[in-house]
């Protein structure tokens, strides 16, 4: 229970919560060197590190991978320890020795467990990656989808031009008079003809109403 509580308590910005067992590791020395503060915690359970952005890290060493199956149990426990809303990351040492197992490791971690796998060559690389994850939290993420209130005018103008015989001028004329796509769709020939001409009005009506199936 204590482990579960610790998992949900995310560290403050610029901090990492690390499992007590990592206290004297090279990884921690490098993270500190990069300006990230580390707090140690005994009750993290299977989790190795907690990052500020609701991410939780399990470190899979070269040794774990080569020694065989026990790391798989650890990974499953790691997945189960992280509730929804927590990003579970597995950092795995991809070295000359563990290389041959990497493909099956990836299959297990990503396809079977649905976790994120990030290969590192060893603790120094892992510390750089963890530091960047902590520090990038304060910056704007350009890859994150922003939902903005959209204005559809440009899109509707282009959409109408997909109708045969309708170019920019006619598309604009249609939207000026009918305002929405749905209203254009319910228009009849006498309403369309004065706007776009007889031939185009016919094209529009058959495009909208002729059966496709």
């Amino acid at each position, binding site marked *: 229970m204590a482990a579960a509580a610790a998992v949900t308590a995310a560290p403050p910005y610029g901090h990492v919560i690390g499992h007590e067992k990592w206290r004297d590791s090279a990884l921690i020395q490098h993270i500190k060197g990069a300006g990230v503060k580390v707090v140690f915690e005994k009750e993290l359970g299977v989790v190795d590190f907690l990052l500020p*952005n609701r*991410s939780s890290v399990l470190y899979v060493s070269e040794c774990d991978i080569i020694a065989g199956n026990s790391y798989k149990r650890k990974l499953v426990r790691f997945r189960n320890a992280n509730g929804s809303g927590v*990003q579970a*990351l597995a950092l795995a040492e*991809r070295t000359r020795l563990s290389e041959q197992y*990497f*493909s099956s490791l*990836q*299959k297990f971690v*990503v*396809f079977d467990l649905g976790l*994120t*796998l*990030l*290969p590192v*060559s060893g603790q120094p*690389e892992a510390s*750089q*990656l963890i*530091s*960047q*994850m902590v*520090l*990038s939290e304060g910056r704007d*993420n*350009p*890859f*994150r*989808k922003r939902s903005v209130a*959209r*204005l*559809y*005018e*440009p*899109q*509707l*103008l*282009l*959409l109408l031009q*997909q*109708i*045969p015989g309708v170019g*920019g001028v006619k598309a*604009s004329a249609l*939207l*000026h008079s009918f*305002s*929405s*796509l*749905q209203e254009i*769709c319910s228009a009849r020939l006498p309403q369309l003809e004065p706007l776009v001409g007889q031939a185009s009005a016919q094209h529009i009506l058959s*495009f*909208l*109403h*002729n*059966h*496709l*199936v």
Partner: protein
Amino acid sequence: TSTTVCILVDSRCISSSADLMSDLRQHHSVNVHVCSLDGSYFVLSNRTAAERHSQSELASMQNRKRLVERVNSLQGLFERVCFIVEKDRTKPGEVGRLFQRTRYFDSTLASLVHAGVRLLWSDGAQDSARLLADLAQLEQRKGQAIAVPLEVRGQHRQQALQFYLALPGVGYVHALHMCHNFISVAQFINSTIEAIQKGGVMSRSRAEEVYRCIRYSCDSFLLNTSTAKKKS
């Protein structure tokens, strides 16, 4: 063990991923269907797309703007976006240069992961083909396989397909479903959100956006500025 899966491939991949495509066909018995997408990526299911990137592409600052555009555009069209990160190819005889993992590369990885992009690691084209086939099969087991007829016959249907593709958030697979599920374009335009969701085999939020666009009342001033912007 499972039935043939289908993967849609953008026509640009014919030159960039020729070996990978033949590998998919020959060794993974995938039905590879070439079509014209809005970027060189692979569609693996109703909701998943994958794109290949080399490590050095992700590590290059000059590439940042393009990468952001790619991610934003794919996330606009798919619920799940995968990046297959490939080791850089070395020419025969060339000694493989060791990839220098920079802070910039790691910060890019961190941002991609936080934005929900799924990363897969590949040694090269063969490995990527296997990953694509595995992903498509996984999606099939989850009931998300592309199961719509891929051929769009006749001029009117082709035109309707292009029309559907011009809707916000509608990708190629949604548009194919719409071509086959709506009797006419008018029937689609007069549909409820539920009917759009069902007919386009898309998420609720996607169907809501399409619905909003159909009923959106244009502002004359904004129409004029959009037209003016296009002319200039």
